[in-house]
């Protein structure tokens, strides 16, 4: 009998471990990583779909990026510049990105409901407004769960954060999909803790002690085999596979010239790491760029932030295209919200969710498309209003998934994407 595994209207997030580790008595949970079956060959690698999210944390201004309104009361000081798509203009703070416009689809009519950092982030990452009694998995967990991995042994759901520690700890962002699909964080792009063999342990000693450990386990398992002991011994094999691929996490192994193209700053390094990980076959990578929360001096801050973002983003699209990966990698540039068209008395823009923009590129996306419109000074959506649910459908459809299907946590159907929305067909290839 399935247990009701969620609490209504409580602050506690209540999908229990027991629930997502499956049927009664199944004690063999394999940890937080999405391990695909080994043996994925080159064919699979080619067909493999991946997702990269660039999250402009704090709330990027749509007016200083994808939907400029020069010469209006809200437009601010920057010009709109032409792009590689005739008729499409974006803000002059993105000159390199402008040359990539033929690869981009821009959605200019997003109303995301909540001008709050935390709620906005949940809304954008899950494609749903918060709902009492249930937590939905974020895009990364959904992608890691539904898309085949090209990197057996590596986690399927990674996020590169501006700072903080790295670790494979269990996070709640996979909700009922379970810790296997929860994100693994790489704080400042650092490799996870304890990934590297200690200096005083030689490869030979390491191999020898592993052999001895295996012998002990084999003897123990002869008469005491259980799902739990299997899970434990298997976790060492998994660890071994990740350790062997450890250099994937090491961005220093890139050609310095490539590193120069991405820019010698944190975001450049983080985006280069993202490319390495995607190239290695990781299903989903999210890179956060901080911080766009510009209540003061919006314009100066956007010069600085977008100045960091513009070049490596363009370099990344070029790299993915050069490697033949852009067709199979969905790239999304999003944020938890936009910023007010009204400029406040500190030359800042405040929180805003009613009419802002998101850009997409790569797998399944029609390059050069622009969907939706805001009013002349950007204070409202004028045409084709969408919310994060439409985007969530679009992301999944773009990588060849059917967003109208269900997950079945505890044998109860839960739609993968919000059934009240549908994919934005105009930007799908």
């Amino acid at each position, binding site marked *: *009998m*399935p*247990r*009701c595994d*969620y*609490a*209504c*209207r*409580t*602050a*506690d997030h209540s999908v229990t*471990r*027991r629930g997502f*580790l499956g049927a009664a008595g*199944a*004690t*063999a*949970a*394999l*940890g*937080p*990583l999405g391990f695909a079956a080994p043996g994925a060959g080159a064919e699979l690698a080619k067909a493999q779909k991946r997702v990269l999210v660039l999250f402009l944390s704090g709330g990027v201004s749509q007016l200083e990026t994808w939907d400029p309104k020069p010469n209006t009361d809200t437009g601010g000081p920057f010009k709109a510049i032409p792009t590689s798509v005739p008729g499409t203009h974006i803000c002059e703070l993105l000159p390199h990105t402008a040359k990539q416009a033929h690869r981009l689809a821009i959605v200019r009519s997003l109303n995301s409901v909540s001008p709050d950092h935390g709620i906005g982030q949940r809304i954008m990452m899950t494609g749903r407004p918060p709902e009492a*009694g249930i937590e939905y998995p974020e895009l990364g967990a959904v992608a890691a769960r539904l898309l085949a991995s090209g990197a057996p042994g590596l*986690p399927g759901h990674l996020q590169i954060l501006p700072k903080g520690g790295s670790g*494979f*700890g*269990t996070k709640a962002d996979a909700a009922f999909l379970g*810790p296997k699909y929860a994100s693994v964080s790489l704080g400042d792009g650092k490799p*996870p*803790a*304890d*990934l*590297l*063999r*200690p200096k005083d*342990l030689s490869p030979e*000693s390491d191999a*020898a*002690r592993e052999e*001895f*450990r295996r*012998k*002990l*386990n084999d*003897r*123990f*398992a002869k*008469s*005491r085999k*259980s799902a*739990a*002991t299997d*899970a*434990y*011994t298997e*976790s*060492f094999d*998994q*660890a071994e596979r990740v*350790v062997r691929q450890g250099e994937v996490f090491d961005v220093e192994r890139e050609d310095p010239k490539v590193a120069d193209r991405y820019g010698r700053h944190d975001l450049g390094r983080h985006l280069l790491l993202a490319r390495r990980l995607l190239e290695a076959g990781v299903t989903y990578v999210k890179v956060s760029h901080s911080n766009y929360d510009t209540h003061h001096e919006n314009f100066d801050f956007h010069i600085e932030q977008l100045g960091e973002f513009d070049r490596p983003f363009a370099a990344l699209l070029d790299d993915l295209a050069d490697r033949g990966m852009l067709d199979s990698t969905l790239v999304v540039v999003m944020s938890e919200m936009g910023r007010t068209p009204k400029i406040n008395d500190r030359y800042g823009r405040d929180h805003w969710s009613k009419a802002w923009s998101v850009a997409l590129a790569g797998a399944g996306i029609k390059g050069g498309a622009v969907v939706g419109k805001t009013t002349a000074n950007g204070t409202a959506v004028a045409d084709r209003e969408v919310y994060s649910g439409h985007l969530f459908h679009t992301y999944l459809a773009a990588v060849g998934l059917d967003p109208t299907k269900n997950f079945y946590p505890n044998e109860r159907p839960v739609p993968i994407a919000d059934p009240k929305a549908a994919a934005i067909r105009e930007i799908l290839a």
Partner: protein
Amino acid sequence: MLLSVLLAAAVAADDARNPLHPRIDAAIAAGHPDFATLAAPPADDAEFVRRAYLDLAGTIPTVAEVRAFLDDKSPGKRAGLIDQLLASPGYVRRMVWFLDVTLMERRPDVKVTRTAWEEYLRAAVANNRPYDALVREMLSNDGADPKTRPAAKFLLDRNLERDPVTRDLSRVFLGRDIRCAQCHDHPSITDYKQAEYFGLAAFLNRSALFPSAAVANAAIGEKADGDVTFVSVFDKDKKQNTTPPMVLGGKPFAEPKPEKGKEYKVAPAANVRPVPTFSRRELLAGAITSPENTAFARTAVNRVWAMMLGRGLVEAVDWDHPGNPPSHPELLDLLSAEFVRHNHDVKWLVRQIALTRTYQRSSEAPAALAKLESVPADRYLVANLKPLTAEHLAFAVAQAGGQPGGAGSVGTFRAMFGGRPGESQADFTATLDQTLFLKYGPALRGVLAPRAAALAKLPDEAVADELFLSVLSRRPTADEAKDVADALRRAKDRTAALSELVWALVASAEFRFNH
């Protein structure tokens, strides 16, 4: 006083004639038609000594302790060891872990510090306070007196939020996870009712932290009025329901109605913590622990059974309902009744379980059993493997490394192996960060270093015995002794080689589980 002494004496005399542990074994044996042919033999001495130390003292035995037990030829040595361990400080420490995790489920400490809480539990376990008295104290303390405040941690650290507290009261003390019934009667479990949920919530409905949950030393204040109301989300007519405070189908309490103007001992006012003349919350403690509420003792013994045997008679321990019956219903009734008759004496219960053949059975499946497609874990034909808890692991690793005490690293192990806060730890998981921590983490290497250094001083022929006794609490097989000898012969650096051997034993499944 005299009466209770006489009663206790009568119970003791009765126990001497008809002790509980053989009755437990009889009930378990009756639970499978082929029990006599299929059940595993008793654990051997090495298996038993490791298991007893882990379960009753929270760590593995020292080499000297293992040797002493293995060499002891007296027939009563197992019962002797059980009593020795139950009287040791290790038992207190181990039961503090058990109570802490049972009650707080690894929530972050917010209102009562870990030190104060553990000290409170330590005193309770050291004095073997009756479980019902302990719970009564924890649920009735309002946290206002700094001296007794740690008792209120269960309520205070949940910020006395009505719904999380209601849910956990039911899960922890009544064995029933009725969270679903917050919004409607449970759709498939016929007796998890919304009225049961709100009957429990009604005890708390008038209480809140004062001055507010945001204040670190907040205490519990209570109003003299206010009732719960609830609407089923399934009810199209949206009918408002209410219920008096009630525990699990027990009688509703007749609430005294204080005279007008005398509703409060301390009346509500600005910056004043209100204390009513009649407190619903104080009623809760008595109602939950009342002998009439059989779910209380039933849940307590089921949780202690799960601690000792690796699974509850009702499994999961917070999932007691007619659709999920106990594996041995009569046994659960027997244990509950005897626990109440023995004045909710936890140590007595632990001792009785430890004395059973069921507890002392080998975890190695005999040939007849190994042939079966699957061995039903709830028949206790063979001892269940129990993963070491975070605390057990910290202490066992320290003992294996030659650093008994191990207290320094408990926090590290809790953070790594403690699981998600606010959830019962039902299933074993081995996450990659945990495995990398064991594999390459500097913390473990540091803890194990003294053992390697000590082993390095021994003559070659003594190393294998000492190594296996110190980490796995058993002597090596001939093959294993040869492997150790070969490794030593090949070694360029003797201490380094030994430190990797120690690691291999610690990282083995045999070490990770209490078997």
